[in-house]
């Protein structure tokens, strides 16, 4: 802001902020792109790859992440321990059951640049499966980011007036008994 003193403006531009993202009913890929952009610092006009301008991101509710299509059954996460016979392949559903944080972590890891800064950026990413956050992280949070996907309404969440306001598209014939 132009009304700040020079030192305050300097502090405001180069400070490392903490963002919060709620991953409830969100696709992990879209969450990961938002995280990767802010961990690198690409959302700032003062970005430079060498100037370590990334921010901290806290992702909560990763247990309730939503994949589109049949990716829970089709998407396979593979890893090799290095030893013979150490090739493991797990479907997204199995991996999520074993560790609810892993899917978001792997997606963000794959979206960061493949250099030595990647590990430090991953240390600045904090993932929590539930919405219980420790107090010191809660105290640091500055901004909550809007969710990328609009969560659709369930039929039970509509009020009776909204249901009545929607017109009946067809009338059943007289001889048909609605079971």
């Amino acid at each position: 802001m132009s009304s700040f003193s020079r030192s305050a403006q300097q502090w405001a531009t180069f400070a490392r902020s903490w963002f919060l993202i709620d991953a409830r009913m969100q696709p992990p890929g879209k969450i990961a792109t938002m995280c990767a952009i802010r961990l690198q610092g690409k959302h700032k006009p003062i970005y430079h790859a060498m100037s370590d301008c990334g921010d901290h991101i806290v992702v909560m509710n990763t247990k309730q992440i939503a994949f589109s299509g049949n990716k829970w059954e089709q998407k396979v996460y593979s890893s090799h321990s290095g030893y013979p016979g150490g090739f493991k392949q797990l479907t997204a559903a199995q991996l999520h059951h074993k560790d609810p944080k892993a899917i978001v972590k792997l997606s963000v890891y794959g979206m960061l640049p493949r250099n030595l800064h990647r590990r430090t950026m991953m240390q600045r990413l904090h993932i929590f499966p539930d919405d219980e956050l420790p107090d010191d992280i809660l105290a640091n949070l500055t901004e909550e980011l809007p969710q990328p996907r609009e969560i659709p309404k369930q039929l039970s969440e509509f009020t009776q007036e909204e249901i009545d306001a929607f017109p009946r598209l067809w009338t059943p014939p007289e001889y048909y008994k609605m079971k």
Partner: protein
Amino acid sequence: MAARSMLRSVWTSFAGLKLGATGSNVIFQQGTTIPQLSAVTIQSRGLRQVVEKQEGKTTIIEGHILNTPKAPEPPNPEAKCPIYRWNLQHKYNYTDVLLLSQFIRPDGGLLPRRITGLCLEEHRKIAICVQMAHRAGLLPDHKPEPPANQIIKKPKQQLNRYLTCWSTDSVKPIYKTGLKWCKRRMAVGSPLLKYNVRYGVKHMNIKH
């Protein structure tokens, strides 16, 4: 329907009569419609409410016709399919539960096409949208009743999903995705909905 049931009751009452001289009369009446009743044309049917009244020793059962308010006029009344009548052809998705719930049974199944009056392509689109809505958990009250199971099964892992076109048990994991030019893609959404109105420049991506 009431006229027909009344006719049927009249026929059966006449059939019960054992008249020797009027035997031919009975057959004649059974074959043709009685002219007095056929003059009654039922134009508008309202919902009926059966009311029971007890006055001392007599019980009176009456049927009152309820006043149903007039339904709003569809913008295109000449079309055969209800979706074309309301000009909703390429405008609905799996999230429009208020629309989809009008074509389903209480246990989640779809109503037959000859009853709803939908054209074939719209019926298929609605079917796939209803399937996707069920799998996304948008229709929680329309689950089928489980049969009396004494064995309490382990609850399955509740995974959130959306735009799932295939059934969860029928899909196999893709262990080898292949190289970029021959990748085995994962299907999201349905090609039946590819002509839906989109307010962006990009096409709907079905192959992820």
